[in-house]
């Protein structure tokens, strides 16, 4: 079971009280982008085994969106943080690196 703590209201609840929003920090490609870039923006998603950053919505609670860093293999949650950001905060990056020392956040996708 995946349990998440919503950073907007502080409730810890199990996953069915939330709605998954897929990979976080996507870089939007607009009409000016090349076809392959636009296609990648719409359809290509990371699917790592290990640390992953996703958007979630507290749909059966406060209704807010937030970001979650979690391990897709163990369901361990490294942390949750506000949507008002372009990437994970340092403490969450550090938490991820305790399990995956070489992990880096792909900033290219988030500029």
């Amino acid at each position, binding site marked *: 079971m995946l349990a998440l703590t919503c950073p*907007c*209201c*502080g409730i810890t*609840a199990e996953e069915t009280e939330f709605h998954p929003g897929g990979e976080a920090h996507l870089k939007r490609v607009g009409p000016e982008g090349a076809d392959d870039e636009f296609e990648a923006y719409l359809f290509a998603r990371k699917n790592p085994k290990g640390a992953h950053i996703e958007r979630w919505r507290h749909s*059966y*609670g406060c*209704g*807010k969106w937030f970001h979650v860093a979690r391990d897709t293999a163990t369901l361990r949650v490294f942390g949750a943080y506000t949507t008002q950001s372009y990437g994970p905060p340092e403490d969450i990056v550090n938490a991820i690196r305790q399990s995956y020392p070489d992990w880096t956040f792909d900033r290219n996708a988030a500029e």
Partner: protein
Amino acid sequence: MAEALATIRRVEGMGMITLRGALEQIGPVVSDVTGIALPECRKITGAGDRQLGWMSPDELLCVMPVADLPAILAALQDGLTDRHALVLDMSDARVIYDIIGAHAEDVLAKLSPADLGAVGSDDLRRSRAAQTAAAFWRIESGFRVIGFRSTADYLGALLHNAAMPGSQLAPR
């Protein structure tokens, strides 16, 4: 014949006002008008049939007898004219059930994944009951549950079913 785990009662005659806005801006006005202290994050304040609940970082819920609603609604709208806020009578969109009895917690525990042990006497827990959204808080001898009027029959059926005699969760 075993008794039902709890009595399920649909509560009529209650009104609800939804308020949205920056709580630090609208909060003092809401507290003044209702005479109820502003609830902190995830809390519910007030007593009996007049309460103020924290719904989200930008939403409050005001519960009161429907007879008191027009005056409170007008006073809130009046008090908030100079602030960016939503004040809306949501009474017709909502339903209230009370679960009263020794095993009231068992009834709710069957339907909601919420950790009821973590729900204190002044907490307002937003969650779900099976497939419909529900929020609840503790009242004397049980819980008050609010849900959507559009799924009121479903919620009522769920609650009655979960209260079926002889179905308590603890080993007998």
